[in-house]
């Protein structure tokens, strides 16, 4: 792969949580990387391990979690890094944006104070300078009257404004990578459009690479360069955004795309649910974890497929039948999961 040196490279990442019922393997050997200025989208259903893998990279998982594998930021290994060293990386070179801005902001401090703190933690600047940097950041993310807003508290802001403050905080120290975990999920569509634009502006201003975790395939389609699809703690498909959306080779990706309702010019079209539910990650049975929900499933699926290259340079799929799966796909506009589920139902007029 003739790609520039990645900024952040995750390799064979494994996360285990010991519980009373057994060990939950939430992330089972995940590898991805993101190049400078690139956007990597991570998609999948709840419980696929998207957020846990990001938290593992940030070193933010609670104590019982066991993380192994590697995550390198410009060559520096983050897994197992001493907290004192990691603290210097977090917020300065590696920033994270969470889904719920209300719980990532301190309710008893002003917005300006919190932004100034983020600056002062990593740089030796005067309070006054940190303060003016805070106002500058608020202006950068499109908050009107930034000077006045800086004196306000989080509860005085709307959800969209709070998320902008969180983005401003992530930008505060010109990070190399911004990990955004469902940054627009709790917001209205119009606000979501504003936030996506703000994220774009944040990337342009800082030149940071971005890892965008979301279950909304529409958000990823417009923003990402590369996409990975996760299922049951593994990457099941990985490729350029066009490859994954237009030529999906994994039945799960196709089913996921087929389950989406679309606002087409005709405003209609039936979406197809994925039958069954994701497997429990405690004592996962051997074989392909998607097999119980997959219409292509055959005897071979008893062996868990590994990610293999199906289309150079980078389209990889973990499925034994990716060729058949590819030919069953009806094309971009068609919810081809109909073919996947063998369910052909007349559209609603």
């Amino acid at each position, binding site marked *: 792969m003739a790609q520039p040196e990645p900024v952040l490279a995750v390799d064979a990442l494994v996360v285990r949580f010991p519980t009373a019922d057994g060990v939950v393997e939430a992330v089972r050997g995940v590898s991805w990387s993101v190049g400078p200025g690139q956007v990597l989208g991570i998609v999948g259903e709840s419980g696929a391990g998207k957020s846990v893998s990001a938290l593992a990279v940030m070193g933010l998982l609670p104590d019982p979690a066991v993380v192994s594998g590697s995550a390198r930021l410009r060559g520096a290994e983050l897994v197992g890094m001493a907290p004192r060293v990691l603290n210097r990386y977090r917020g300065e070179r590696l920033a994270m944006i969470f889904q719920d801005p209300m719980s990532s902001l301190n309710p008893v401090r002003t917005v300006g104070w919190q932004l100034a703190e983020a600056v002062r933690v990593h740089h030796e600047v005067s309070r006054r300078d940190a303060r003016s940097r805070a106002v500058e950041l608020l202006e950068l993310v499109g908050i009107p009257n930034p000077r006045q807003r800086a004196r*306000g508290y989080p509860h005085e802001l709307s959800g969209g404004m709070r998320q902008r403050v969180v983005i401003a905080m992530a930008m505060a120290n010109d990070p190399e990578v911004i990990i955004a975990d469902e940054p627009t999920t709790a917001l209205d569509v119009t606000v979501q459009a504003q936030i996506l634009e703000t994220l774009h502006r944040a990337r342009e201003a800082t030149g940071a690479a971005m890892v965008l975790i979301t*279950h909304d395939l529409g958000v990823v*389609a*417009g923003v990402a360069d590369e996409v990975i699809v996760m299922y049951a703690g593994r990457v099941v498909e990985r490729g350029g955004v066009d490859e994954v959306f237009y030529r999906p080779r994994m039945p799960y990706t196709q089913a996921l795309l087929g389950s989406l*309702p679309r*606002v087409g010019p005709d405003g209609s079209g039936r*979406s197809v649910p*994925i039958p069954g539910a994701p497997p429990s990650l405690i004592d996962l049975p051997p074989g392909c974890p998607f097999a119980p929900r997959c219409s292509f499933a055959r005897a071979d699926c008893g062996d868990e497929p590994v990610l293999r290259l199906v289309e150079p340079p980078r389209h990889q799929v973990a499925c034994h039948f990716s060729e058949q799966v590819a030919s069953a796909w009806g094309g971009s*506009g068609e919810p081809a999961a109909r073919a996947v589920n063998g369910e052909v139902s007349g559209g609603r007029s």
Partner: protein
Amino acid sequence: MTVLAGASGTGVVVGQPVLAVRDLVVHFGARRRSRPPLAGRRSAGIVHAVCGVSFDLGAGETLGLVGESGCGKSTTARAVLQLVPPTSGSVRFEGRELTSLGTGELRRLRADLQMVFQDPYSSLDPRMSVGTSVAEPLRVHRRLGVHGEERVAELLRTVGLDPAHARRYPHEFSGGQRQRIGIARALALEPKVLVLDEPVSALDVSVKAGVVNLLEELQDRLGLAYLFVAHDLSVVGQISDRVAVMYLGKLVETGTAAAVYQHPSHPYTQALLSAVPQPDPALERRRRRIVLTGEVPSPVSPPSGCRFRTRCPKAAPVCAEEEPALVDRGQGHPVACHFAEAVDPGARCGIG
């Protein structure tokens, strides 16, 4: 399914709406704030949550009510069911005025008008088994009888759950399954109208489609009428026969789903539709989004004239003075805008 079949067929003359809402107004009294607010705008006053909303809902029909958070869509839904008292206006169910009914009469009528809530985690009692939860409306309306258990099993089967799970508790179910339980409970009394307040917003995409399809099947089978409240335009477009777009307490555009989605004519509807991200990379790269600036103004002191004018790209002086009525302005469906102009979303997205 003989027990459930009662709701379809008889009772409603074709063409006469099951539910007719006229000039519905809901105001909430706001309390004085102890600390002076930031912008100084939000002084003590009345929250104008719903300001003169009118619509009809026909038998077996789905009306989608869409809008952003705080536009009054949930309050409208609740006021229709008299769960919040309307300040003024009329809500008629099969010709009977609901706003003037006494508690006892209202309770009896509620069997015909049921609600499904957004959050299946908080709408089910965690200490009540699923069977008991589903049977509760039957018990309240003294219809449990000797066949209660069979009826509960049948309801669970209707929504695609295993009747053997009636003894289990809500925490043992996934989000999608819980929403199905909520739907089973709402169906228990064989209602004619189901008010669904963001029924699929909290669910994963793969599960969402299943619940939406279930709702469509139930409607076809039982002849239910749905008032479907949601902020997700793609789901609303899929399930609705007609759509009403709401902004700051008022309807700004109504029409068949095809008309509103194919020829959105109010600038707000156009902005809403253009903001929905599509799972199509090429389309996403090409299209120009109408990104609305600013936020929804406070419903305590809504703007004069057209309420959308503060964020509208087409705003002109007339918009501040004269409130545009919701009438057909040559687009084939009612639009509340002085400068209504149908736009082909295909062209906007850069297809044509």
